[in-house]
């Protein structure tokens, strides 16, 4: 936390925040004491990662409890370690879990608001499954946005997988239906269905999504096997409403968290995990098909507080603390 903050500090953020972070930064080697001010600063740094007020308060209270237990003072590095632990636990402690393959075909439905990275993330998943030796078919279910079909086609070419597409304006449910039909006939392992971006407050578009899922089930009653919410790491508290609304229309299995190659921490997934218990399964770390990883809660938590820029002493202390 503190330490990622250092990096950001150099980039010149608002003065107030610099002061806050500077103060904590200066305290790295020091013991920290249980004071209102300190806890407030921790809370602020959490909020600055988009975890939201409620989750930040809860995590901070956890720190307060630990501090109290330890008699009111703690090494700052330990504070970081405790926060990491708590965050990882909140996120279900998932560490790079492979998806459970079903089918064939294993049907993946990618949903989310506009511009979050659905199509690009589909390319990444296609690449991932192909690298595992599975055959993949993409369904060009965004028949709305200009050149969306062309974009997915280019990704199909680049990753060397098949694609089923129809004309612009075609019924996306029909595209998905065809794709699964084709996959069944040809014995393809994985079908990934792209969808148009839709804001969760658009009733009509959400109904359309419901229909896609329903029609998919006509082909394969247990499909979709993986319904993924594509979430941009830059998203703030609206991410909570996205998760809630989408899952009420098409029950979500996991989050694909994109654009983690920036400085955005994607902290809102913590608030999401708290409110609807939706895990993160994949992360996107760039614009290429290879810029992809399975989600690792510990890594994520470390990224959130960025222990890497801790100086040697503090790192050792943190390691000691986690070993104990």
């Amino acid at each position, binding site marked *: 936390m503190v330490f990622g903050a250092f990096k*950001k500090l150099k*980039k*010149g*953020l*608002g*003065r*107030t*925040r*610099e002061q*806050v972070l500077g103060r904590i930064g200066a305290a790295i080697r020091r013991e920290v004491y249980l004071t209102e001010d300190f806890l407030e600063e921790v809370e*602020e740094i959490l*909020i*600055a*990662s*988009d975890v*939201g*007020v409620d989750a930040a308060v809860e995590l901070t209270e956890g720190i307060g409890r630990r501090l109290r237990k330890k008699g009111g003072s703690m090494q700052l590095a330990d504070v970081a370690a405790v926060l990491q632990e708590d965050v990882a636990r909140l996120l279900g402690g998932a560490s790079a879990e492979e998806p459970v393959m079903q089918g064939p075909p294993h049907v993946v439905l990618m949903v989310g*608001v*506009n*511009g*979050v*990275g659905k199509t690009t993330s589909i390319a990444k998943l296609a690449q991932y499954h192909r690298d595992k030796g599975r055959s993949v078919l993409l369904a060009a279910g965004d028949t*709305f*946005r*200009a*050149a*969306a079909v*062309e*974009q997915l*086609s*280019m*990704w199909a070419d*680049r990753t060397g997988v098949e694609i089923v597409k129809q004309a612009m304006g075609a019924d996306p449910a029909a595209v998905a239906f065809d794709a699964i039909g084709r996959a069944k006939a040809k014995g393809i392992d994985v079908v990934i269905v792209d969808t148009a*971006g839709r*804001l*969760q*407050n*658009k*009733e009509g578009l959400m109904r359309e999504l419901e229909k896609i899922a329903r029609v998919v089930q006509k082909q394969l009653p247990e499909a979709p096997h993986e319904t993924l919410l594509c979430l*941009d790491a*830059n*998203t*703030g*508290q*609206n*991410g909570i*409403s996205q998760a809630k*609304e989408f899952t009420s229309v098409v029950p979500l299995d996991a989050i694909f968290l994109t*654009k983690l*190659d*920036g*400085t*955005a921490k994607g*902290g*809102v997934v913590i608030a999401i995990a708290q409110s609807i218990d939706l895990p993160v399964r994949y992360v996107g770390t760039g*614009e290429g098909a290879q810029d992809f990883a399975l989600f690792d809660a510990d890594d994520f938590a470390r990224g959130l507080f960025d222990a890497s820029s801790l100086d040697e002493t503090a790192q050792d202390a943190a390691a000691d603390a986690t070993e104990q």
Partner: protein
Amino acid sequence: MYGNALRFRRQRALPAWAGVRVWVAGCLGRFFVFQELQDRLEGTLRNLRGNARLSEENMTDAMREIRRALLAADVEVSVAKSFVASVKDRALGEDVLKSLSPGQQVVKVVHEELVALLGHSAQDLDLQGDPPSVVLVMGLQGSGKTTFSAKLALYLKEKGRRPMLAACDLQRPAAIDQLEVLAESIGLPVYTQRGTEDVVAVAKAARQAARDQLCDVLIVDTAGRLQIDESLMEQLSELEAAIKPSEKLLVLDAMTGQEAVSIASTFNDRIGVTGSVLTKLDGDARGGAALSLVHITGKPIKFAGVGEKVTDLELFHPDRVAGRILGMGDMMSLIEKAQENVDEEQAAEMEAKFRRAEFTFEDFLDQLRQVKKMGSLKSIMGMLPGMNPKMLKQVNVDDKQLSRTEAIICSMTPHERRRPEILNGRRRKRIANGSGTHVADVNRLLKQYKDMKKMMKTLSKPGALDRFGKGLFPGM
């Protein structure tokens, strides 16, 4: 805008609504106005009533609530802090107005400050100089740059300009196709060049093409880039130096969280932002990023993207976004609509009746008809503070219900409308038959009417009515 809101209240048109509000609330089974921030403030300032002034001590908790509200709306931490400090300065020492509760007063100050900041010297695009003037469109991946470029081109075309688009996103697959499709749909020229990665060369060639074709504005769509991507930021900086845009617009997604500050400051430092565009405001994000944007760049937000279609572009309304950030719904739209449609004289008369608790079914009928003029009930309720789409979905006051209620009242004789207490079983049955409803419907309406009367009795106490009206539009 407060001017407007206050003027509106002075016209005393608001209470005319109160009856309908009680009726709608009756249908909902509860009051739907959810004034989270104001209620919390009311709580923290409760013991202030006796005190004459807002002071350092009595405002501490209130300021904490405001900060919390801003953070929940995605205003960046440091921006929220300095904003709260400025609000505090302004509110300090202000006399507690008699007409407003302390909570309302603080909300009013917060809202005014927000509007002042967001509305920061709103200007039109600067498209002076030798044609073609160049508009550089930049921002993160997926923020809506390409869509906005097309929207802006159409907007300028409609203002009599001759814009050309330049496809300088040579990165994202099919980005050029996307801009081509959009340009064709609005019937405007687009300059493209495939098979190259030299963005600067493409932009220069586009400018020449614009000159040759006598276009007076060139809108340059660029690839998305994260503000920390050094090589892409360098590329943008070179592009900027080469084409010397007169407008450099930063496009930001309204759903953006705390990163907004870092994004805005980097683009501003490296490229120089002349104005911003907030997209996807048709969603339900609170839009606190807007405040961070303006705070950091010191430049106005010039446009709002409100949908995926090329026509979904609006000039930025600071007042609306301020209300949104505070969770107060789009109250200005509602007030504008009300102003257009509520007959002032009638409203004043209604208020008098309210005070005397003489509200009859005839008055109710008038109100229903005024509401109907304003649009569908759902669309009106959608503008009310605290109503989100989910709640609207659950609400089953549809316009049929409005018509049904109207039909029931119309089936009463004028005498019955004025003296509903004479409605016995036989009359109710007749009314049900006449309006094509059931006796149960008639009974329900009568029950609602009774509740309304009761409510109005309490409201007719001096002062209570003002507060009630204000409850409908918190912060006024």
